[in-house]
């Protein structure tokens, strides 16, 4: 338990899934090496480490690769105990896992749809995104009533704080680029305050990709999507 492990993360700077892993490792105080992948020209190493999906992030610990960001996050939590990312009782853990899956399943598709659409389709995707956030807000309020701390997890950030928080700069960029309102204090006050608390941490500020880079990336994606849909 005492010896330091050799930890290496293969990722792409603009991938929020990779940001999740950076955040988790840093919150646990784990020293690691980082390898930036060119997703248009993936390294032979990456393809060997994640032959099934051929994607980032991949976390390699003492030579053993772990892929899929959700899986990596739980792995990190189980390998380095403090600070914990999950509650200790089975029911609360089940609820955290439920909302993590919900976020991945229901949040991602409408956000992609917003980026690539206009007019009626954009309106529909925006409504869906807002509705999903509303369900998440209600669910988190019911399952994790305010404890002694500014985070969903309590006095330190947990799995949901990391996942919801890390997604936020992207959401903000999408709002700006598509000219829509997605995440406001009025609509989802609890989530808003949790995300604000998380993003205010110095560790988080020093880890997340600078906003202007995120904005540029989203701008480019939207431009490409809209121009290809005109053909």
């Amino acid at each position, binding site marked *: 338990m005492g010896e330091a492990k050799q930890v290496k993360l293969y990722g792409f700077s603009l991938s929020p899934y990779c940001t999740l892993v950076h955040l988790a490792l840093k919150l646990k105080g784990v020293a690691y090496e980082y390898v930036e992948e060119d997703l248009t020209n993936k390294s032979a190493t990456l393809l060997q480490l994640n*032959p*099934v999906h051929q994607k980032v992030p991949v976390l390699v*610990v003492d030579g*053993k690769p*772990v*892929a*899929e960001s*959700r*899986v*990596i996050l*739980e*792995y990190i939590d*189980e*390998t380095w105990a403090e600070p914990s990312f999950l509650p200790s009782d*089975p*029911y609360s*853990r*089940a609820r955290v*896992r*439920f909302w993590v*899956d*919900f976020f991945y399943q229901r949040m991602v598709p409408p956000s992609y749809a917003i980026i690539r659409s206009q007019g009626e389709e954009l309106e529909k995707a925006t409504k869906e995104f807002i509705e999903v956030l509303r*369900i998440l807000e209600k*669910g988190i309020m019911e399952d994790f009533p305010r404890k002694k701390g500014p985070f969903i997890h309590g006095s330190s950030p947990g799995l949901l704080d990391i996942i919801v928080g890390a997604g936020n700069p992207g959401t903000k960029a999408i709002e700006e680029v598509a000219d829509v309102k997605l995440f406001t204090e009025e609509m989802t006050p609890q989530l808003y305050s949790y995300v604000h608390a998380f993003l205010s941490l110095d560790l988080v500020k020093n880890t997340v990709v600078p906003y202007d880079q995120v904005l540029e990336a989203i701008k480019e994606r939207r431009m490409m999507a809209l121009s290809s849909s005109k053909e």
Partner: protein
Amino acid sequence: MDQPPSSVKLLGSWADSHTHRVQLALKLKGLEFEYQEEDFINPSPALLLHNPVYKKVPALLHGGRSIVESVVILQYIDETWTDNPIMPADPFERAVTRFWCHFTDDKLAPAVGLVFSSSGEGQKAAVDQVHENLKLLERELKDGAFKGRRFFGGDKIGLLDIVLGCGSYWLAVFEEVMEVKLIDPESFPVFHAWLRDFEEQQEVKETIPAIDRLLEYARGIRQMMLSLSNSSSSSSINNAAASSG
């Protein structure tokens, strides 16, 4: 609730592989439970109450609360009743288990469902997709993370066996109903051997419905789907296909 807090109740559907996962896990843990059959096309008030977000089976009721999403339920069961663990103890092994659970539900199952709900060129593409996915599993069993093991969990059935096994019976059923080759023992010898071994286990035999019931059920759904015109199938039919994957 009137029942003592330790009692367990499962809301499920008899032909739903996710329900079977939970039933099998409870059986393997030697747990008594009450079972309530749900018509997943018309969810009961109880199901709407206990799974308001997805309105689907299975839902496990325990200690006055409900737990939903089959892989979440399996981990809950393992963490609540700690004898005869179904998850490995080692964090890396646990990560491998979770990875392949996601693979099963995000890649393999949808491809299998698509074989069932499509025809012509679309079906051929879906069949190819199933083969690609099975190849990956076969490789992992033969040379990778699960090399040399009887079950994914080792000598005994574990969580991944439960997740993969409860659903893989549809491969044989769809082969017959759709007249396609999905799980040819020559192409996937290790996977095929594992599946046969899994299905021979006592608790598994007690959980998975008889194959002729599944065949009849699948034929009925397929008939219904084909008799609808080219308009997109009702969500209930998609649910049937999806939950059959």
